[in-house]
Protein backbone atom coordinates (compact mmCIF):
# COMPACT_ATOMS: atom_id res chain seq x y z
CA UNK A 1 0.00 0.00 0.00
CA UNK A 2 1.07 3.54 -0.56
CA UNK A 3 3.36 5.44 1.71
CA UNK A 4 2.19 9.04 1.93
CA UNK A 5 4.94 11.64 1.87
CA UNK A 6 3.92 15.22 2.65
CA UNK A 7 4.99 17.67 -0.07
CA UNK A 8 5.11 21.46 0.25
CA UNK A 9 3.13 23.60 -2.18
CA UNK A 10 5.54 26.04 -3.83
CA UNK A 11 3.41 27.52 -6.59
CA UNK A 12 -0.28 27.86 -7.46
CA UNK A 13 -1.24 27.68 -11.14
CA UNK A 14 -4.44 28.21 -13.09
CA UNK A 15 -6.95 25.43 -13.42
CA UNK A 16 -6.67 24.11 -9.88
CA UNK A 17 -3.08 23.08 -10.48
CA UNK A 18 -0.06 23.57 -8.24
CA UNK A 19 3.61 22.73 -8.01
CA UNK A 20 4.78 20.80 -4.96
CA UNK A 21 8.34 20.18 -3.82
CA UNK A 22 10.02 17.55 -1.74
CA UNK A 23 13.76 17.71 -1.10
CA UNK A 24 14.24 19.74 -4.27
CA UNK A 25 12.16 17.46 -6.49
CA UNK A 26 9.22 19.33 -8.00
CA UNK A 27 5.97 17.97 -9.40
CA UNK A 28 2.87 19.49 -10.94
CA UNK A 29 -0.32 18.22 -9.36
CA UNK A 30 -4.04 18.93 -9.23
CA UNK A 31 -5.48 20.60 -6.15
CA UNK A 32 -9.06 20.31 -7.43
CA UNK A 33 -10.15 17.95 -4.66
CA UNK A 34 -9.24 20.04 -1.62
CA UNK A 35 -10.18 23.52 -0.46
CA UNK A 36 -8.13 26.61 0.35
CA UNK A 37 -4.66 25.50 -0.62
CA UNK A 38 -1.97 28.13 -0.24
CA UNK A 39 1.74 28.31 -0.98
CA UNK A 40 3.57 26.81 1.99
CA UNK A 41 0.85 24.25 2.81
CA UNK A 42 1.77 20.59 3.05
CA UNK A 43 -0.37 18.14 1.11
CA UNK A 44 -0.55 14.40 0.56
CA UNK A 45 -0.56 13.56 -3.12
CA UNK A 46 -1.79 10.39 -4.78
CA UNK A 47 -2.00 9.61 -8.49
CA UNK A 48 -1.52 13.26 -9.36
CA UNK A 49 -4.09 14.70 -6.93
CA UNK A 50 -3.62 16.37 -3.57
CA UNK A 51 -5.99 14.47 -1.30
CA UNK A 52 -5.37 15.99 2.13
CA UNK A 53 -3.71 18.94 3.76
CA UNK A 54 -1.51 18.21 6.76
CA UNK A 55 -0.18 20.64 9.33
CA UNK A 56 3.48 21.65 9.16
CA UNK A 57 4.04 19.89 12.49
CA UNK A 58 2.49 16.66 11.26
CA UNK A 59 4.39 16.90 7.99
CA UNK A 60 7.63 17.47 9.88
CA UNK A 61 7.07 14.41 12.05
CA UNK A 62 6.22 12.19 9.10
CA UNK A 63 9.19 13.40 7.04
CA UNK A 64 11.51 12.83 10.02
CA UNK A 65 10.19 9.27 10.35
CA UNK A 66 10.62 8.65 6.64
CA UNK A 67 14.18 9.94 6.82
CA UNK A 68 14.89 7.74 9.84
CA UNK A 69 13.62 4.74 7.88
CA UNK A 70 15.85 5.70 4.94
CA UNK A 71 12.84 6.23 2.69
CA UNK A 72 13.51 9.71 1.43
CA UNK A 73 17.05 9.12 0.19
CA UNK A 74 16.16 5.85 -1.52
CA UNK A 75 12.80 6.69 -2.97
CA UNK A 76 13.13 10.23 -4.24
CA UNK A 77 14.55 8.79 -7.44
CA UNK A 78 11.17 7.15 -8.05
CA UNK A 79 9.40 10.46 -7.59
CA UNK A 80 12.01 12.27 -9.68
CA UNK A 81 11.05 10.03 -12.59
CA UNK A 82 7.85 12.02 -12.96
CA UNK A 83 9.24 15.37 -11.89
CA UNK A 84 9.07 18.70 -13.69
Amino acid at each position, binding site marked *: *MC*LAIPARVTQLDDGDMAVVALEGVKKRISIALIEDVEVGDYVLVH*VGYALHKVSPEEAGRTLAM*MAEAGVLAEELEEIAGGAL
Partner: protein
Amino acid sequence: MSLEGHVEIVLPQDPAGSAQVRLAEPADVTGLLSGRGGEDVVKLIPALYALCGTAHAAAACAALESASGFRPDDQTRRTRTCLVLMERIREHILRVTLDWPAFIGEAPDRNTARAAMPLLAGLKAVIDPHREAFLPGAATVFDAHGACEVIDQAERLIGDQIFNETPQGWLGRGGPSAIGQWAKTRTTIASRVIDELSSGRGKDLGAVEPVYLSEFESSHSIAPEGRGSDPCPETSPLDRRRSHPFLASSGKPSVMDRHIARLIDLAATLLELRRMVLDRTVEPHMPGPVRSEGIGMVETARGRLTHQVSMHRGAVKTYRIVSPTRWNFAAGGIAERCLNTLRGAAPDDRVTCASLIVAAIDPCVAHSVRGH
Protein backbone atom coordinates in the same frame (compact mmCIF):
# COMPACT_ATOMS: atom_id res chain seq x y z
CA MET B 1 3.94 12.52 -2.81
CA SER B 2 3.01 8.89 -2.58
CA LEU B 3 5.11 5.83 -3.06
CA GLU B 4 2.83 3.12 -4.28
CA GLY B 5 5.47 0.76 -5.61
CA HIS B 6 5.82 -0.20 -9.22
CA VAL B 7 4.88 -3.16 -11.34
CA GLU B 8 7.05 -4.03 -14.32
CA ILE B 9 5.37 -6.24 -16.89
CA VAL B 10 7.34 -8.00 -19.59
CA LEU B 11 5.34 -9.57 -22.42
CA PRO B 12 7.32 -12.12 -24.41
CA GLN B 13 7.39 -12.04 -28.21
CA ASP B 14 7.18 -15.81 -28.24
CA PRO B 15 3.44 -16.64 -28.33
CA ALA B 16 4.15 -19.63 -26.11
CA GLY B 17 6.04 -17.59 -23.53
CA SER B 18 4.62 -16.41 -20.21
CA ALA B 19 4.20 -12.83 -19.04
CA GLN B 20 6.57 -11.75 -16.28
CA VAL B 21 5.22 -9.56 -13.51
CA ARG B 22 7.70 -7.96 -11.12
CA LEU B 23 6.35 -6.01 -8.16
CA ALA B 24 8.65 -3.54 -6.42
CA GLU B 25 6.83 -2.50 -3.26
CA PRO B 26 7.49 0.84 -1.56
CA ALA B 27 10.24 0.97 1.03
CA ASP B 28 9.55 -1.10 4.12
CA VAL B 29 9.16 1.29 7.03
CA THR B 30 7.98 -1.28 9.52
CA GLY B 31 11.46 -1.28 11.09
CA LEU B 32 10.44 2.06 12.63
CA LEU B 33 7.90 0.21 14.74
CA SER B 34 10.32 -2.16 16.48
CA GLY B 35 10.57 -1.58 20.19
CA ARG B 36 7.51 0.68 20.33
CA GLY B 37 4.38 0.10 22.36
CA GLY B 38 1.00 -0.58 20.80
CA GLU B 39 -0.35 2.95 21.25
CA ASP B 40 2.67 4.43 19.47
CA VAL B 41 2.20 2.02 16.59
CA VAL B 42 -1.48 2.89 16.18
CA LYS B 43 -0.54 6.57 15.98
CA LEU B 44 2.39 6.10 13.60
CA ILE B 45 0.79 3.74 11.09
CA PRO B 46 -1.93 6.16 9.84
CA ALA B 47 0.68 8.92 9.45
CA LEU B 48 2.93 6.72 7.31
CA TYR B 49 0.07 5.26 5.27
CA ALA B 50 -2.21 8.29 5.40
CA LEU B 51 -3.88 7.75 2.01
CA CYS B 52 -5.75 4.74 3.34
CA GLY B 53 -4.98 5.46 6.97
CA THR B 54 -8.28 4.17 8.36
CA ALA B 55 -7.79 0.67 6.97
CA HIS B 56 -4.19 0.59 8.19
CA ALA B 57 -5.15 1.85 11.64
CA ALA B 58 -7.88 -0.78 11.86
CA ALA B 59 -5.56 -3.57 10.75
CA ALA B 60 -2.89 -2.42 13.21
CA CYS B 61 -5.41 -2.35 16.07
CA ALA B 62 -6.70 -5.80 15.19
CA ALA B 63 -3.17 -7.21 15.04
CA LEU B 64 -2.02 -5.61 18.30
CA GLU B 65 -5.19 -6.52 20.17
CA SER B 66 -5.14 -10.12 19.05
CA ALA B 67 -1.45 -10.31 20.07
CA SER B 68 -2.35 -9.14 23.55
CA GLY B 69 -5.58 -11.14 23.83
CA PHE B 70 -7.67 -7.98 24.15
CA ARG B 71 -11.04 -7.76 22.43
CA PRO B 72 -12.59 -4.31 22.11
CA ASP B 73 -16.23 -3.76 22.98
CA ASP B 74 -19.00 -3.97 20.40
CA GLN B 75 -19.38 -0.20 20.08
CA THR B 76 -15.70 0.34 19.30
CA ARG B 77 -15.71 -2.45 16.74
CA ARG B 78 -18.84 -0.98 15.17
CA THR B 79 -17.23 2.46 14.93
CA ARG B 80 -14.08 1.06 13.36
CA THR B 81 -16.08 -1.00 10.88
CA CYS B 82 -18.13 2.02 9.81
CA LEU B 83 -15.02 4.13 9.24
CA VAL B 84 -13.34 1.39 7.19
CA LEU B 85 -16.48 1.01 5.06
CA MET B 86 -16.70 4.74 4.40
CA GLU B 87 -13.03 4.90 3.40
CA ARG B 88 -13.71 2.06 0.95
CA ILE B 89 -16.69 3.97 -0.49
CA ARG B 90 -14.62 7.12 -0.94
CA GLU B 91 -11.84 5.21 -2.68
CA HIS B 92 -14.27 3.60 -5.12
CA ILE B 93 -15.84 6.97 -5.93
CA LEU B 94 -12.40 8.47 -6.60
CA ARG B 95 -11.41 5.68 -8.95
CA VAL B 96 -14.71 5.74 -10.87
CA THR B 97 -14.73 9.53 -11.22
CA LEU B 98 -11.01 10.22 -11.75
CA ASP B 99 -9.74 7.14 -13.62
CA TRP B 100 -12.67 5.68 -15.54
CA PRO B 101 -13.40 8.72 -17.79
CA ALA B 102 -10.09 8.10 -19.61
CA PHE B 103 -11.51 4.79 -20.91
CA ILE B 104 -14.04 6.75 -22.96
CA GLY B 105 -11.78 9.67 -23.77
CA GLU B 106 -13.28 12.10 -21.27
CA ALA B 107 -11.87 14.37 -18.58
CA PRO B 108 -12.02 13.33 -14.91
CA ASP B 109 -15.22 14.18 -13.05
CA ARG B 110 -13.56 16.30 -10.39
CA ASN B 111 -16.82 17.75 -9.06
CA THR B 112 -18.06 14.35 -7.91
CA ALA B 113 -14.62 13.40 -6.61
CA ARG B 114 -14.45 16.66 -4.64
CA ALA B 115 -17.88 16.01 -3.16
CA ALA B 116 -16.69 12.58 -1.98
CA MET B 117 -13.69 13.92 -0.11
CA PRO B 118 -15.48 15.18 3.05
CA LEU B 119 -17.54 11.99 3.57
CA LEU B 120 -15.04 10.16 5.77
CA ALA B 121 -14.23 13.24 7.84
CA GLY B 122 -17.97 13.90 8.20
CA LEU B 123 -18.57 10.41 9.52
CA LYS B 124 -15.61 10.66 11.90
CA ALA B 125 -17.02 13.89 13.29
CA VAL B 126 -20.21 12.16 14.43
CA ILE B 127 -19.10 8.65 15.41
CA ASP B 128 -15.51 9.28 16.49
CA PRO B 129 -15.36 12.98 17.40
CA HIS B 130 -12.39 12.56 19.74
CA ARG B 131 -10.39 10.45 17.25
CA GLU B 132 -10.07 7.63 19.74
CA ALA B 133 -11.61 4.72 17.86
CA PHE B 134 -8.23 3.19 17.09
CA LEU B 135 -6.63 3.76 20.45
CA PRO B 136 -6.48 0.94 22.99
CA GLY B 137 -9.42 0.94 25.37
CA ALA B 138 -11.29 3.56 23.35
CA ALA B 139 -14.79 4.48 24.52
CA THR B 140 -16.36 5.97 21.43
CA VAL B 141 -19.37 8.26 21.13
CA PHE B 142 -21.71 7.06 18.40
CA ASP B 143 -24.26 9.48 16.96
CA ALA B 144 -26.34 7.18 14.75
CA HIS B 145 -28.60 10.01 13.57
CA GLY B 146 -25.61 12.11 12.50
CA ALA B 147 -24.07 9.07 10.81
CA CYS B 148 -27.24 8.49 8.78
CA GLU B 149 -27.13 12.08 7.54
CA VAL B 150 -23.60 11.55 6.21
CA ILE B 151 -24.62 8.22 4.66
CA ASP B 152 -27.58 9.99 3.05
CA GLN B 153 -25.15 12.44 1.46
CA ALA B 154 -23.04 9.57 0.14
CA GLU B 155 -26.12 7.79 -1.18
CA ARG B 156 -27.35 10.88 -3.03
CA LEU B 157 -23.92 11.46 -4.56
CA ILE B 158 -23.53 7.85 -5.68
CA GLY B 159 -27.13 7.60 -6.83
CA ASP B 160 -27.06 10.83 -8.84
CA GLN B 161 -23.55 10.75 -10.29
CA ILE B 162 -22.63 7.08 -10.64
CA PHE B 163 -25.74 4.94 -10.97
CA ASN B 164 -28.39 7.49 -12.00
CA GLU B 165 -30.71 5.50 -9.73
CA THR B 166 -30.57 4.43 -6.10
CA PRO B 167 -27.60 2.20 -5.21
CA GLN B 168 -30.05 -0.30 -3.70
CA GLY B 169 -32.12 -0.35 -6.88
CA TRP B 170 -29.01 -0.79 -9.01
CA LEU B 171 -27.75 -3.63 -6.82
CA GLY B 172 -31.13 -5.31 -7.18
CA ARG B 173 -30.83 -5.39 -10.96
CA GLY B 174 -29.01 -8.66 -10.57
CA GLY B 175 -27.94 -10.44 -13.72
CA PRO B 176 -26.21 -9.46 -16.97
CA SER B 177 -29.26 -8.42 -18.98
CA ALA B 178 -30.50 -5.92 -16.38
CA ILE B 179 -27.05 -4.41 -15.86
CA GLY B 180 -26.53 -4.35 -19.63
CA GLN B 181 -29.82 -2.47 -19.96
CA TRP B 182 -28.66 -0.01 -17.31
CA ALA B 183 -25.38 0.57 -19.17
CA LYS B 184 -27.19 1.23 -22.44
CA THR B 185 -29.84 3.61 -21.11
CA ARG B 186 -28.08 5.72 -18.46
CA THR B 187 -25.68 8.57 -19.07
CA THR B 188 -23.28 8.57 -16.14
CA ILE B 189 -19.57 7.97 -16.68
CA ALA B 190 -19.88 4.58 -14.98
CA SER B 191 -22.73 3.40 -17.20
CA ARG B 192 -21.01 4.57 -20.38
CA VAL B 193 -17.72 2.92 -19.40
CA ILE B 194 -19.49 -0.37 -18.74
CA ASP B 195 -21.35 -0.03 -22.05
CA GLU B 196 -18.07 0.62 -23.84
CA LEU B 197 -16.38 -2.35 -22.18
CA SER B 198 -19.34 -4.64 -22.88
CA SER B 199 -19.47 -3.76 -26.56
CA GLY B 200 -15.71 -3.78 -27.10
CA ARG B 201 -12.69 -5.80 -26.16
CA GLY B 202 -13.29 -5.48 -22.42
CA LYS B 203 -16.07 -8.04 -22.48
CA ASP B 204 -13.70 -10.98 -22.83
CA LEU B 205 -10.33 -9.39 -22.14
CA GLY B 206 -8.24 -11.10 -19.46
CA ALA B 207 -10.88 -13.72 -18.73
CA VAL B 208 -9.43 -16.56 -16.65
CA GLU B 209 -10.69 -19.06 -14.11
CA PRO B 210 -10.61 -17.22 -10.77
CA VAL B 211 -8.97 -18.43 -7.56
CA TYR B 212 -10.18 -16.44 -4.57
CA LEU B 213 -8.26 -15.73 -1.39
CA SER B 214 -11.41 -15.82 0.71
CA GLU B 215 -11.69 -19.52 -0.14
CA PHE B 216 -8.43 -20.15 1.71
CA GLU B 217 -9.37 -19.52 5.30
CA SER B 218 -6.41 -21.23 6.94
CA SER B 219 -3.62 -19.48 8.81
CA HIS B 220 -1.39 -20.25 5.81
CA SER B 221 -3.11 -17.52 3.81
CA ILE B 222 -1.40 -14.52 5.40
CA ALA B 223 1.02 -13.89 2.52
CA PRO B 224 1.40 -15.22 -1.02
CA GLU B 225 4.93 -16.59 -0.64
CA GLY B 226 5.59 -20.33 -0.43
CA ARG B 227 2.71 -21.55 -2.57
CA GLY B 228 4.90 -23.52 -4.96
CA SER B 229 3.40 -23.90 -8.42
CA ASP B 230 -0.21 -23.42 -7.26
CA PRO B 231 -2.02 -20.35 -8.64
CA CYS B 232 -1.83 -17.48 -6.20
CA PRO B 233 -5.35 -16.46 -5.13
CA GLU B 234 -6.63 -12.95 -5.71
CA THR B 235 -8.12 -10.55 -3.21
CA SER B 236 -10.34 -7.87 -4.73
CA PRO B 237 -13.88 -6.49 -4.93
CA LEU B 238 -14.55 -9.42 -7.26
CA ASP B 239 -13.59 -11.88 -4.53
CA ARG B 240 -15.69 -10.00 -1.97
CA ARG B 241 -18.84 -9.83 -4.17
CA ARG B 242 -18.55 -13.00 -6.22
CA SER B 243 -21.93 -14.28 -5.00
CA HIS B 244 -23.77 -11.34 -6.65
CA PRO B 245 -25.93 -12.77 -9.50
CA PHE B 246 -24.01 -10.90 -12.19
CA LEU B 247 -20.61 -12.11 -11.02
CA ALA B 248 -21.83 -15.58 -10.13
CA SER B 249 -22.94 -16.01 -13.74
CA SER B 250 -19.48 -15.12 -15.07
CA GLY B 251 -17.42 -18.31 -15.16
CA LYS B 252 -14.25 -16.52 -16.19
CA PRO B 253 -14.37 -12.89 -15.07
CA SER B 254 -13.07 -10.39 -17.61
CA VAL B 255 -11.91 -6.76 -17.41
CA MET B 256 -15.56 -5.68 -17.78
CA ASP B 257 -16.63 -7.99 -14.94
CA ARG B 258 -13.94 -6.53 -12.69
CA HIS B 259 -15.25 -3.02 -13.31
CA ILE B 260 -18.80 -4.15 -12.55
CA ALA B 261 -17.51 -5.84 -9.39
CA ARG B 262 -16.20 -2.45 -8.26
CA LEU B 263 -19.64 -0.89 -8.77
CA ILE B 264 -21.29 -3.79 -6.94
CA ASP B 265 -18.85 -3.34 -4.07
CA LEU B 266 -19.57 0.38 -3.96
CA ALA B 267 -23.36 -0.10 -3.75
CA ALA B 268 -23.16 -3.06 -1.37
CA THR B 269 -20.68 -1.33 0.95
CA LEU B 270 -23.02 1.65 1.25
CA LEU B 271 -25.89 -0.64 2.27
CA GLU B 272 -23.65 -2.48 4.74
CA LEU B 273 -22.59 0.80 6.27
CA ARG B 274 -26.18 1.89 6.86
CA ARG B 275 -27.07 -1.47 8.40
CA MET B 276 -23.98 -1.28 10.61
CA VAL B 277 -25.16 2.08 11.93
CA LEU B 278 -28.84 1.24 12.40
CA ASP B 279 -29.05 -2.45 13.23
CA ARG B 280 -27.40 -3.42 16.49
CA THR B 281 -27.89 -7.11 15.72
CA VAL B 282 -25.44 -6.87 12.79
CA GLU B 283 -22.09 -8.14 14.00
CA PRO B 284 -19.25 -5.69 13.28
CA HIS B 285 -16.67 -7.39 11.09
CA MET B 286 -13.77 -5.49 12.56
CA PRO B 287 -11.64 -7.21 13.56
CA GLY B 288 -12.18 -10.15 11.27
CA PRO B 289 -11.79 -13.76 12.28
CA VAL B 290 -8.69 -14.36 14.39
CA ARG B 291 -6.42 -16.72 12.45
CA SER B 292 -3.68 -16.66 15.00
CA GLU B 293 -2.28 -14.24 17.51
CA GLY B 294 -0.94 -10.98 16.16
CA ILE B 295 -2.81 -10.88 12.86
CA GLY B 296 -5.25 -8.17 11.79
CA MET B 297 -7.10 -8.21 8.47
CA VAL B 298 -9.17 -5.49 6.83
CA GLU B 299 -11.06 -5.53 3.54
CA THR B 300 -10.03 -2.39 1.65
CA ALA B 301 -11.28 -1.16 -1.72
CA ARG B 302 -8.51 -3.11 -3.42
CA GLY B 303 -8.74 -6.26 -1.33
CA ARG B 304 -7.45 -7.72 1.90
CA LEU B 305 -4.86 -5.82 3.91
CA THR B 306 -3.04 -7.79 6.60
CA HIS B 307 -0.89 -6.60 9.48
CA GLN B 308 1.10 -9.11 11.49
CA VAL B 309 2.89 -8.28 14.73
CA SER B 310 4.87 -10.14 17.33
CA MET B 311 5.37 -8.56 20.75
CA HIS B 312 7.99 -8.99 23.45
CA ARG B 313 7.43 -7.49 26.91
CA GLY B 314 4.83 -5.05 25.63
CA ALA B 315 6.88 -3.80 22.69
CA VAL B 316 6.88 -4.66 19.00
CA LYS B 317 9.43 -7.30 18.09
CA THR B 318 8.52 -7.77 14.41
CA TYR B 319 5.92 -6.12 12.19
CA ARG B 320 4.83 -7.05 8.68
CA ILE B 321 2.28 -5.54 6.29
CA VAL B 322 0.88 -7.57 3.38
CA SER B 323 -0.99 -5.47 0.82
CA PRO B 324 -3.60 -6.66 -1.68
CA THR B 325 -1.12 -5.77 -4.41
CA ARG B 326 1.30 -8.38 -3.05
CA TRP B 327 -1.28 -11.11 -3.69
CA ASN B 328 -2.55 -9.91 -7.02
CA PHE B 329 0.86 -9.25 -8.60
CA ALA B 330 2.64 -12.28 -7.14
CA ALA B 331 4.11 -15.04 -9.30
CA GLY B 332 1.18 -17.12 -10.49
CA GLY B 333 -1.20 -14.39 -9.35
CA ILE B 334 -4.27 -13.03 -11.05
CA ALA B 335 -2.37 -10.31 -12.95
CA GLU B 336 0.07 -12.79 -14.45
CA ARG B 337 -2.69 -15.22 -15.38
CA CYS B 338 -4.81 -12.50 -17.00
CA LEU B 339 -1.79 -11.16 -18.91
CA ASN B 340 -1.05 -14.61 -20.25
CA THR B 341 -4.35 -14.46 -22.14
CA LEU B 342 -2.68 -11.88 -24.40
CA ARG B 343 -0.46 -14.50 -26.03
CA GLY B 344 -0.58 -14.22 -29.78
CA ALA B 345 -2.04 -10.70 -29.88
CA ALA B 346 -0.38 -7.95 -31.96
CA PRO B 347 2.53 -6.33 -30.03
CA ASP B 348 1.04 -2.82 -29.79
CA ASP B 349 -2.38 -4.17 -28.90
CA ARG B 350 -0.88 -6.32 -26.15
CA VAL B 351 0.59 -3.26 -24.42
CA THR B 352 -2.75 -1.44 -24.48
CA CYS B 353 -4.62 -4.51 -23.28
CA ALA B 354 -2.05 -5.14 -20.53
CA SER B 355 -2.67 -1.64 -19.15
CA LEU B 356 -6.44 -2.24 -19.17
CA ILE B 357 -5.92 -5.49 -17.26
CA VAL B 358 -3.67 -3.89 -14.64
CA ALA B 359 -6.11 -1.00 -14.15
CA ALA B 360 -8.99 -3.44 -13.70
CA ILE B 361 -7.11 -5.43 -11.05
CA ASP B 362 -5.47 -2.55 -9.19
CA PRO B 363 -6.21 0.99 -10.39
CA CYS B 364 -3.69 2.58 -8.03
CA VAL B 365 -0.52 0.71 -8.85
CA ALA B 366 2.00 2.40 -11.14
CA HIS B 367 3.14 0.10 -13.90
CA SER B 368 5.16 -0.15 -17.07
CA VAL B 369 4.72 -2.65 -19.88
CA ARG B 370 7.31 -3.72 -22.43
CA GLY B 371 7.77 -6.47 -24.94
CA HIS B 372 10.75 -8.80 -24.75
